[in-house]
């Protein structure tokens, strides 16, 4: 067994009290479900769900050199990011493969916040600090321990947060944020999420996070607000074809084949991985991450081979039953020639080739509130 004990979020006690089933995830003891994955999934699509994502990491960087440091480290163009806005981005290796995916918040003229995956906090911290050691006047701070994070997602999320906030949160556009308070807890109110629904992610001091969680649940009770585990978080993001680090993207997959070319901006200047990605882009990617729909009942899972007329042509990276589409869906890397929507393929499941078809994604229409 693992020698290091699992870490716990500020909401651990609340999860135990709520009867959650807790499982190890990326070094953390996290709720996988409270009442049932499918029921929780539907709560988010139909009403509003609360997710404890306090396990995610937060790094701050500040100083006149912060912009240069982030331009070197990340693939998106930080110079184009205005104060008060957020963008999705990648940390890449020189080979163009992925250290982590993250969101970058511009907090002030020379101050930024990076939100990274829980399982990658230590690796990312070592990476960002080592790779920018020679950048002058850029000061890093790892704020992961002291920061709690609650995602409030679903068609009733806006009204719920609006009732408790000290400001008009309806005016905060998608991928924008404001600092204020919610239920009298100081919070960074960010219009982001990982479900395809409208909603917010609320960053709060770790020691005030439980108060915020309890207040949100109480204020949302009449709207059907409920805590949502990592199980439903996974089916919700899968229906949107959002990549999950460790499943769909990792240190062996490059940004372009993963379909993340929209956050690779070589025109901004040099960054780690730029040269390799420019070359890959010029040559074309040999495989692509696509959405698959099983044409009969069958669950494709991470690692299962994808076949074309009996020949191995790819690998499944994520798969499940999609409760909102009522279909068995998956994400898979397949040869580029076979990546077009409508291509008939198969997934090998326990030795049997089960028919599947490449489909357009997202599998379920996004309802995020575009600015």
């Amino acid at each position, binding site marked *: 067994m693992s020698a290091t004990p699992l870490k716990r979020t500020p909401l651990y006690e609340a999860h135990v009290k709520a009867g959650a089933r807790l499982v190890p995830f990326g070094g953390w003891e996290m709720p*996988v*479900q409270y009442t*049932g*994955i*499918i*029921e929780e999934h539907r709560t988010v699509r139909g009403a509003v769900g609360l997710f404890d994502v306090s396990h995610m990491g937060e790094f701050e960087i500040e100083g006149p050199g912060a912009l240069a440091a982030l331009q070197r480290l990340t693939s998106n163009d930080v110079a184009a990011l205005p104060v008060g806005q957020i963008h999705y981005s990648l940390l890449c290796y020189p080979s163009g493969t992925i250290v982590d995916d993250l969101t970058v918040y511009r907090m002030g003229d020379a101050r930024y916040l990076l939100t990274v995956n829980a399982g990658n906090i230590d690796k990312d911290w070592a990476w960002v600090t080592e790779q920018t050691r020679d950048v002058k006047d850029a000061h890093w701070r790892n704020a992961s321990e002291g920061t709690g994070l609650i995602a409030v997602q679903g068609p009733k999320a806006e009204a719920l947060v609006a009732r408790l906030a000290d400001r008009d949160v309806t005016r905060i556009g998608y991928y924008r944020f404001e600092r204020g308070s919610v239920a009298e807890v100081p919070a960074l109110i960010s219009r982001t999420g990982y479900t395809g629904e409208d909603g917010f992610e609320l960053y709060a001091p770790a020691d005030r996070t439980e108060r915020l969680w309890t207040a949100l649940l109480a204020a949302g009770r009449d709207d059907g607000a409920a805590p949502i585990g990592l*199980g439903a978080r996974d*089916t919700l993001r899968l229906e949107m074809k959002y990549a999950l680090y460790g499943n769909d993207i990792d240190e062996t997959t490059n940004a372009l084949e993963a379909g993340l070319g929209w956050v690779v901006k070589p025109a901004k200047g040099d960054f780690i991985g730029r040269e390799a990605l420019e070359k890959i882009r010029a040559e074309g990617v040999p495989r692509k991450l696509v959405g698959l729909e099983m044409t009969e*009942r*069958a*669950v494709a*899972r991470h690692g299962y081979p994808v076949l074309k007329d009996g020949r191995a042509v790819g690998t499944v990276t994520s798969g*499940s*039953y999609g409760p909102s589409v009522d279909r*068995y869906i998956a994400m898979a890397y397949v040869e580029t020639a076979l990546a077009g929507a409508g291509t008939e393929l198969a997934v090998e499941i*326990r030795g049997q080739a089960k028919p599947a078809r490449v489909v357009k994604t997202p599998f379920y229409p996004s309802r995020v509130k575009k600015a």
Partner: protein
Amino acid sequence: MANVPANLKYTREHEWAKQEGDRVRVGITAYAQEQLGDVVFVELPKIGAKVAAAKNFGVVESVKAVSDLFAPVSGEVVEINGELPQKPETVNQDPYGKGWMIVVKPSNKAEWDQLLTAPQYEEFLAKGGH
């Protein structure tokens, strides 16, 4: 604690077995379905297939996990629950009733006595169930 009907026998892999004349009806226990979570796929053998005690006879999948199904006794499959592949959630809703999986005509009656009784299964669960 999970529901463990007294009139059934059990395996350590969380299947139940019910004597019905000279046949044995098989399903998974309330504890098993609860541990699995929402069942989204069930794969059963064909009628006429031979199953062997403690060997895999099918698969049940929840959103998060794939689990093999193990036969409590050896014999021939004489009935399958044809509803389950279309309505896998029945396994969660009624594991000892409408969620049954197969009926076996046993070939070795001695195997029945090897199965856990309800009190033995309850004790097994109390010790962690694995």
